[in-house]
């Protein structure tokens, strides 16, 4: 059999398998056509299938997944539209969730305030001025119950941007589900739980790297047994990019971190194929359209090779890089905020053309404050217009084979490997972070970008070119300034009401677990069920693990 015949045979196999799949899970339409009635094929291929094509691209849903992780991609199901939301109190955020679900959002994504993310109760002196500001304030299971009131947890998937105290918030989510009568096996969603990027880029760490890694691997182990549909980590390039990294650095540093998590889990005695299918990724999308698309495609190929060749994973699901994308908050301008709708559209489109599994589109007013209900709706509508009107999801990987996109994909892959080699030389991601390597690289890139903007070499419309005078000020969302006080009162109430002996008992059991090596999830769950607060739980761990100082 000639090579060409061999490749054709592989293609036929793929086609038959895909059709079998479609028989079980039909595509959105039987026939896809353009507005002129021209039929749109599921997949477009080069004239000649050769070694290079098979090795670099392959077919969608097949190793190395360059063309997407599903054979039918958005022809079968649109990506999950998951808008990040949360502010003020649990009541207010619960209302916003219900609003977004009514508007057609298909998954929840919770933003927590900074005290919650750093493990402080709302009445902690460190929480001054911050309660409910960038997300919802959660002090105990009581708040979490309010947050998800009227939302059946077996029917939505929920993403939670929580890192250092991820184990505690996940425990609260499981406990809320228990109260709703939903078993943990049915829960689906994601916790961000990526601590390494906090040391590099986002700053919401609590503990030093070693115990932080332990908390993560404990979550991997616990979920693989008890919460099997849960994505136990979302390895995030997003914040690395927002801190000023280039597209290549975003991908390289998140991959370096991902390698560290895998190694930590293996060292903790987990099997690669047991946890790898539950690893998820979180990307940023900035304005350089084709580079972004190429970044997503390169990411899938790099991950597939790493998992298969370096870590010897056997399951196909372990090779697949599944990712959420958020458009680039730092690309938005406070000047002429309506322009941001256009930026977000371009960025969202790059994520869709790059094959994202879920998407958050930023609201136009985010350079000024948290989104208003109106701006959050426009952001969601942007995704819906791309999904339902543009037709870009009617064929799989529409830019595959573009000379430019393929060349960029290859180039990005190459540059990422260069960084990975360098980080390997430094002793891996944790060591590289401890030495400040990634931080310096990102800082340099951020500074250079700022200089290009100030010199006019890079044009930002409305900011350094095409400015207007006397811009009207848009309406912005304001968080109730009395919220901090209200939250304190609520907390005092809870402390007076709950069974304090039970809380004490749960906390000392947690302390003992922290000193030993047992999995921390069960004692955390018990503490949460006893209505111990996030501050109390984190303080026990702070006392045992120490605190990280940047």
């Amino acid at each position, binding site marked *: 059999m000639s090579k060409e015949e061999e490749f054709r045979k592989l293609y036929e196999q793929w086609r038959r398998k895909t059709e079998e799949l479609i028989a079980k899970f039909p595509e959105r339409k039987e026939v896809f056509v353009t507005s002129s009635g021209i039929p749109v094929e599921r997949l477009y291929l080069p004239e000649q299938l050769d070694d290079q094509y098979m090795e670099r691209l392959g077919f969608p849903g097949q190793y190395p997944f360059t063309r997407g992780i599903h054979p039918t991609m958005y022809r079968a199901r649109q990506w999950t539209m998951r808008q990040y939301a949360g502010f003020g109190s649990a009541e207010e955020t619960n209302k916003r969730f219900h609003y977004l679900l009514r508007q057609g959002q298909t998954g929840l994504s919770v933003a927590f305030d900074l005290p919650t993310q750093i493990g402080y109760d709302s009445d902690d002196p460190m929480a001054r001025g*911050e309660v409910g500001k960038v997300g919802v304030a959660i002090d105990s299971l009581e708040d979490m119950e309010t947050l998800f009131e009227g939302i059946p947890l077996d029917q939505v998937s929920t993403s939670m941007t929580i890192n250092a105290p991820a184990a505690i918030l996940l425990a609260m989510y499981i406990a809320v589900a228990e109260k709703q009568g939903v078993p943990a096996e049915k829960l689906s969603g994601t916790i961000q739980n990526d601590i390494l990027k906090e040391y590099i880029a986002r700053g919401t760490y609590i503990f030093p790297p070693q115990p932080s890694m332990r908390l993560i691997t404990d979550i991997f182990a616990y979920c693989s047994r008890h919460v099997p549909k849960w994505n136990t980590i979302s390895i995030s390039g997003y914040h690395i990019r927002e801190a*000023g990294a280039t597209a290549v650095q975003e991908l390289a540093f998140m991959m370096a971190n991902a390698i560290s998590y895998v190694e930590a889990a293996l060292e903790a005695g987990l099997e690669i194929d047991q946890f790898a299918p539950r690893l998820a990724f979180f990307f940023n999308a900035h304005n350089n359209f084709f580079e972004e698309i190429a970044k997503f495609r390169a990411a899938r190929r790099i991950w597939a090779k790493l998992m298969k060749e370096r870590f010897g994973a056997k399951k196909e699901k372990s090779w697949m890089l599944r990712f959420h994308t958020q458009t680039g908050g730092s690309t938005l301008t406070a000047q002429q905020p309506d322009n941001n709708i256009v930026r977000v559209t371009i960025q969202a489109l790059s994520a869709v053309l790059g094959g994202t599994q879920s998407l958050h589109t930023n609201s136009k007013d985010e350079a000024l404050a948290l989104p208003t209900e109106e701006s959050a709706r426009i952001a969601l509508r942007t995704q819906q217009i791309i999904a339902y009107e543009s037709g870009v999801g009617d064929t799989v990987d529409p830019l595959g084979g573009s000379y430019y996109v393929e060349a960029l994909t290859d180039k990005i892959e190459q540059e990422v490997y260069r960084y990975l080699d360098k980080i390997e030389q430094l002793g891996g991601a944790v060591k590289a972070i401890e030495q400040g390597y990634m931080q310096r690289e990102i800082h340099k890139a951020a500074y250079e970008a700022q200089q290009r903007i100030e010199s006019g070499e890079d044009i930002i419309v409305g900011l350094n070119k095409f400015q207007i005078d006397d811009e009207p000020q848009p309406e912005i969302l304001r968080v109730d300034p009395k919220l901090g006080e209200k939250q304190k009162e609520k907390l005092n109430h809870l402390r007076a009401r709950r069974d304090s002996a039970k809380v004490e008992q749960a906390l000392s059991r947690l302390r003992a677990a922290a000193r030993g090596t047992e999995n921390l999830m069960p004692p955390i769950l018990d503490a949460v069920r006893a209505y111990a607060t996030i501050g109390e739980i984190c303080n026990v761990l702070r006392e045992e693990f120490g605190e990280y100082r940047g």
Partner: protein
Amino acid sequence: MDKIRVLIAKPGLDGHDRGALVIAQALRDQGMEVIYTGLRQSPEQIVASAIQEDVDCIGLSCLSGAHNELFPEVVRLLKEQGADDILVIGGGVIPAEDIPYLESQGIAKVFTPGASTKDIADYIRLALKEKKRKLLVDPPKKIAHIGIAVKSIEDSLPFYQQQLGLALEGIETVESEQVRVAFLKVGETRIELLESLSPDGPIATFIKHRGEGIHHLALEVDDIEARLKQLKENGVRLIHEQPKEGAHGAQIAFLHPKATGGVLLELWQYDQQTEEAWA
């Protein structure tokens, strides 16, 4: 002026420090000395570092929305510790409607996203200069006198005395300036007629080039020495860097006309006793 020292600080829990780091780097490139506090600093810690590091300016960065609580607290604590000569500026995700409040609380200026680092550096430089200038006690109290160069006091006096009806307070000789002067009181100020004692004296030279007429304005000030020092630091060209004795034992010094828009300005300080002696 010595190198400007700036503390870039991140109050509150917000961990996004890209802006803070970029500005710190940019200010360093602009020749300033910059200290960065790192994340999660309380207002107390920020003020303590600022005082310990003896900075001229604090730049606060906050993206979490906690600015209305945290920024004014920094200013309040600076005041409490007598360090309110430190310039405080702020930046981050700050809605326009919050800016007047922050300014009313003593934040000198708020830079919102899109501000150029050069503008921030220029602002700091200028604001610190302004601040130093403001440190110059109070503005001059009044015009002490208007100096008029005349060839002969005796020839000029009749006009002022007879036609204008001004009272002559006295005539004296100031050897150091090689002049004879006559003072005539006009309301709360005076006219000073100056006559050269020698053909090469400054008044004689002035008349040779410009003819008779207004020669200088004297501004009455407190603490002439501190004021001269400050003017010198601010780069104002002076004729006298130290005060000297003028008519009636007053302390005087001249500023160079190049620094004042072509007017010869005299600073003039005398005590109450001297003032009474005139009467």
